[in-house]
């Protein structure tokens, strides 16, 4: 394992590294990248190491008008322990908590989880249900924002251009102190150190009478990318969470499953993934 590495300390340094670099990869928590590097004796690319970057828009979790800004270098552990996230975005907190193991959560970043663009990314799945925005910084210093629904373009592929880096994730907060039904369901063989076989994130806003005001539901490990189950969300809007009929629950689950086009691999068959997705979709009302 032999590779070149540059460690910018601030934004200017980062932009410079991005401008000058011809063939580079970003490293933050290295939970994926290190595995890749170990397999290669020499790498053709330079690593731009973000771990020493001292820039609050990359590193901090802050409330902003209309929601929350999560720096792409925020670790899963920081997200797990963030009180605001726990209160307002339980789906994200639970997703971060279900990730790998406590050791890995200390170093794995939310940005890495998004940019690696795995169909089974746990935090990515929660952020999809939360309808987050991705703030992208370009080597020329400009930023652009894309909705997360447009961020993933395929397995391991994103809209990020060659000289772009994900700076922050913006999570909208529709209304403070709104009643929520929000969570993350991860299905796998064991309870930690697991890559989701199927996952489901849901973030449902309720009024005082438990009527569904707005719903966000996303699925992971069931399609080439994480997907937002729009028609399923539309179906339950206006329904009452407590009195939703068995028929509607099943129709909702069927609509969620309609977004799935899972593969059969050594971890599970497509049949299993669909079957379980249906069951866990139903289970959010139980």
């Amino acid at each position, binding site marked *: 394992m032999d590779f070149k590495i540059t460690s910018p300390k601030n934004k200017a340094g980062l932009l410079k590294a991005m401008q000058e670099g011809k063939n580079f990869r970003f490293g933050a928590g290295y939970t994926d990248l290190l595995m890749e590097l170990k397999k290669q004796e020499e790498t053709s690319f330079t690593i731009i190491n973000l771990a020493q970057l001292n820039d609050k828009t990359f590193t901090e979790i802050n409330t902003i008008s209309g929601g929350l800004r999560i720096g792409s270098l925020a670790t899963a552990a920081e997200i797990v322990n963030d009180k605001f996230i726990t209160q307002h975005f339980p789906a994200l907190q639970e997703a971060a908590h279900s990730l790998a193991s406590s050791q890995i959560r200390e170093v794995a970043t939310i940005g890495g989880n998004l940019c690696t663009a795995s169909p089974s990314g746990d935090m990515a799945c929660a952020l999809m249900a939360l309808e987050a925005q991705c703030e992208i910084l370009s080597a020329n210093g400009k930023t652009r924002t894309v909705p997360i629904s447009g961020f993933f373009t395929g397995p391991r592929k994103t809209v990020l251009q060659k000289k772009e880096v994900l700076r922050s994730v913006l999570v909208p907060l529709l209304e403070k102190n709104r009643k929520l039904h929000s969570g993350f369901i991860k299905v796998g063989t064991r309870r930690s150190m697991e890559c989701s076989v199927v996952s489901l994130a849901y973030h449902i806003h309720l009024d005082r009478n438990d009527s569904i005001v707005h719903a966000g539901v996303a699925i992971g490990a069931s399609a080439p990318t994480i997907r937002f189950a729009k028609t399923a969300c539309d179906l339950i809007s206006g329904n009452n969470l407590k009195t939703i009929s068995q028929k509607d629950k099943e129709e909702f689950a069927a609509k969620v499953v309609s977004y799935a086009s899972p593969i059969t691999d050594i971890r599970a068959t497509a049949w*299993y993934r669909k079957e379980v997705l249906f069951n866990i979709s139903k289970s959010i009302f139980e």
Partner: protein
Amino acid sequence: MKKELRVIGKPVPKHDAGIRVTGKAVYGHDIVLPGMLHGAILRTEHPAAEFTIDVSQARKLPGVVCVITADDVDVNNIGYKRDHPILKKGEANCTRDEIAAVAADTKAIAQEALKLIKVKYKVRKGVYDPFEALNEKSPQINKFISGKFPNKNIAEVFHYEHGHLEEEKKKSAVTVTRRFSLPRMTHTCMGTSNITASFNKTDGKLLLYSSTQVPFLYQRDMAHALKMNPSDIRVIQPVIGGGFGSKLDMHPFEPICALLSIKTGRPVQILYSREEEFIASPTRQPMIIDLTAGADEKGNFTFREINIIKDNGAYTSWGATTPFVIMQAFSSLYKVRACKFDATAVYTNNVFAGSFRGYGNPQATFALERIIDLLADELKMDKAAIRLLNANEKGEITGQGLHFETCGHKECLETVIEKAKGKRQKHVASGAEPAKVENPRFKNGIGYASMLHVGGGAKIYRSDGCGTTSKIDPYGYCTIITGSNEIGQGSETVLAMIASEELGIELKKIKVINTDTDVKPWDVGVHASRTSFVAGNSLLGAIRILKDKLNKKASELLQTNDPEFEYSDNKIISEKTKTTIALDKVVREMHFSEPNELAIASFFYEPSSKFQDKDFKGNVSGTYAFASQAIEVEVDTYTGNVKVLDIYVAQDVGKVLNPLLLAGQIEGGILQGVGYALTEELLMHEGKILNPNFHNYKILTASDIPNIHFYPIETNDKQGPYGAKGVGEAPLIPTAAAISNAVCDALGVEFLELPMTPERVLKAIHENK
């Protein structure tokens, strides 16, 4: 018999715990010798192929010192049946097959050299199904067998029977027949396979730093492979990062490393990567078990008829001999009047298995305990009651000739049934969410299983003994030189405790030397849960002789004719005269006054067990261990996930020597058993391993650990040291069977295969609808 025990039975921490947790332990991977080269092995790309090989480019690479293929070496085949070439010539039959090896200045150069070796393959259609291999039209897979069996792909057969099978069939009120299927599980030792070989060209001697579990058999096997004299080979064991049976066989990489050293005259080290460990280290034997069993109308077991097909892989390892143990479970676990047993090991182009904790017994127990539940269902009998009715008893001599001089089977069963009963009732009664009762997502079930395993060694080699030399130095320190070795099971600690107990010397003054075949006396090795029993008895024998010498001198010095001395607090005490003398003083007096003698004694212990006759009958072990488990599970019918809630385990350990180490063995074994039941399987397609990594080979993690409630049963076997029996393998053996019974109880389905992955469970639920 002595008074109260002072050290034995106390929770003494492991002797080597300190060096292990502080990173000071020297594993094989840490060894660096002057001028050492790094070895690497090229394996075939195809599990069934003919090939030609050209290593000329690799030899030219700067930094490469030696490249060998089958053409460069003069060696014998290895393996239990000597059917395994160390380097394969012209033909590959298994994805592990070693076709060339390199020794180079660095690991990177060695890897680079492997890439420069040109191999041309002519791929053949492999045979990956043992039943297909038995078809006359299938090609012969292993060309090195004796040909004593009618079918060319049979590696080994076993036949055993007792009782009147046909008569018992007629007497049976119920009969159940099922086919059970068991997967490949692998050991996943934390320390990957490793060896450092150093051949000295001036004296022709070979020094090996090896993680073998059986150094003296290994020395012999290595000598045979390399056409050397065994005594010219010295085996030193560094700290071993896990054995579990995987290091019972000598594997090709070991003589390959020795050959590289012999060729170069320099030390050579081979270390496996994790991926290589998954691909090239052994597995538990996969097998198909056809079992028919019967019971009379009262539930007494009448007969068992067993036919096993074992996928032997391309070569024969010790794993092929697992029917020795498997047939004990079928012939003798619970009383059964007749038994007919056949097992056939069949060559395929799959990877070959080795030995693995339990040695076939987890497979046998799974089939047997599943079918007991099915018999109980047929008889509409309680599943606990049918087991109690048939449980083994003290004094029993089974149809196979196993003599249970002590037997805790019934007590084990009663204990776990009782403990689990309260729990289960509580679960039903509490009914936390009554709304869910009608169509509950989570279903609970309980399952029982027992096991019988050798507990006093196993005479499968001509000797099952162990030698010990014990000495006390002039400063009052004791050194135990034992034939047995430490592979993490805690034998050093137990032996030090025995010496401390007997000699009244504190633990920190006791040293255990156990790593060098040039120094230590003979021992058959670490297997069959035998070390505490056999090495413990051997040490007790040596101490007896040593004490005779010390007593003689003490009598003289204390001017007493007291035959009963007490050893305590580094002193020898005469009970009769109430006089004492320091132990070290006695040792010095022996040494420095005439007739000038050292405080040293040697003893060889051979268990009372017998080599079985050709019909596999005879009392194969010094004593037998029993255990029962009751396991409660919760099944998520939405995902198929099985959560193991509580495991109640009662085990006849004879006598608790060290409760801390015992708990470690019990918990570790059980967790390996839970993995076998639920998650662990080496997946293969056409001879290739699909999941050679911890990502997809699922061992359980800390968060999956159930509550383990352990109840030791002490039967005080007079054969064992202080009454103890072997404990190491037992906790793993019944776990998968009990979990499987619990899942079937929860869902009303039939599970006949392992592991019960979420997908298989969900599928079973669907098929049962």
